[in-house]
């Protein structure tokens, strides 16, 4: 069972605001969905799940990309070629 406190903690990690009024519903839905996921517990340990994977590499060659101006087109608050963000501290 996942508690309301755990759901609040996860929301804080994920930067997702949750109202007190939503917490009960989210927690109950969480438990119902995670209860369904528990079917994965019956899978045997030791099965190799990485056998078909491989890396794709390329040379680190600079290619044409967006201009700084284009990259900032959608920012609501650009300043001197940078973008403003909320304060960290």
């Amino acid at each position, binding site marked *: 069972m996942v508690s309301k406190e755990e759901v609040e903690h996860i929301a804080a*990690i*994920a930067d997702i605001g949750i109202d007190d009024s939503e917490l009960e519903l989210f927690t109950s839905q969480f438990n119902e969905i995670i209860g369904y996921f528990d079917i994965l517990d019956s899978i045997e340990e030791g099965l*190799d799940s990485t056998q078909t994977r491989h890396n794709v590499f390329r040379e680190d060659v600079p290619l044409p990309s967006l201009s700084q101006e284009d990259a900032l087109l*959608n920012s*609501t608050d650009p300043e001197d070629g940078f973008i403003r963000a909320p304060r960290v501290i």
Partner: protein
Amino acid sequence: MGGRFVFEKPDPHNAFITRCMDVAYGDGPLSGIPIGIKDNISTAGIPTTCASKILEGYIPPYDAHVITLLRSAGAAIVGKTNMDEFGMGTTTENSAYGPTQNPADPTRAPGGSSGGSAAAVASGLVRMALGTDTGGSIRCPASFCGIVGLKPTYGRVSRHGLIAYANSFEQIGPLARNVGDCALLYSVIAGYDPKDGTSLDLPPPAPLQAEIQGKRIGVPAEFFGEGVNPEVADVVRSAIDRLADLGAEVVSCTMPSMRYALAAYYVTSMGEAASNLGRYDGVRYGPAPEFFRPWHDAYSRLRKEYFSEEVRRRILLGTFSLSAGYQGKYYAKAQKARSMVRSDFNRLFEEVDIIAGPTMPSVAFRLGKSCDPLSMYLADILTVPANLAGIPAVSVPCGTAGGLPVGLQLMGRHFAEDEILAAALAFEEGSA
């Protein structure tokens, strides 16, 4: 040659979020054909929102690779179609721009998440459309709206410029009213793209021709298991009988990993969603956060206000299943289940050429009657296996149940799009 396409038809089913009323087109195999684009595919100069308030006002500065290909083929890109926010849903009701109606019955949902693309095609607004399929999001609305939809093999169509929800599953694919148009649009978008590390360099698709004679078609018992509406099952069984009449050999088989498929899909896709959707903080695009608050507080408030409940739920579940202490219980096990599904398909494809079953376990849902989230997730049970294994799958209309369209799903080996489209065409034409 080229010309201009004036997009005058009304949109009574709310299939589009953004319409381009007068567009230029060029020369090529799609010259002048109006095409709708799902609103999670980047189009330079045309607003792209993923049906989310968090991307309201976003205008991509570049085209997705598939859009570049469509423009080169002469297509008239007439707008961006409605969808479930970020592709999360099975009804297209979870859109910040209101639900889309199913043209086959406007009191019903078109399916999701590419419901706008399917409704635009089914209602005759456009001849073809692009959708994306993460866990069935092309095939589900194709089935519910009575049209054809193809999820290509993972890696066959570039995802460059597709706004990511769950990278390891999703593919861009075509929706059209018939197999011929679906194959035509697929032939334009399939190809290598060096900008996508998962893209494969393969020969172009073969010309389409009806072919089913002598093919072995596997029918896993699990595709007709609990939860599949009996009327839908009967229609699909009749369709498979028709394939046999056309010369196919039908073989019963089993797919034991199906019992884990849905959980594996949702655990993995939610984990990927939690990671992908971390970028939406209003700083580089979208609505601005409150600058006078500290970082986490400002972002939490913004993301609560602008993400829908479903998107927030999936980000929370994804964050949970990847968190320390639970990663081994959920995410790692889901990867094992994914390997089991892939192995099951590989085993079956040693015996058969195509796997057939229903696309969806029911007909289109009534609008406004969506039940709890888990029940909605369960509706994806027949489509997610193809995404877990990365194989191609097509949904082709095969009749009606209670007057509503039913889809026949045909799945093939990796990169065997030509084979399943050939079978779908044979079915559509009733010829071998």
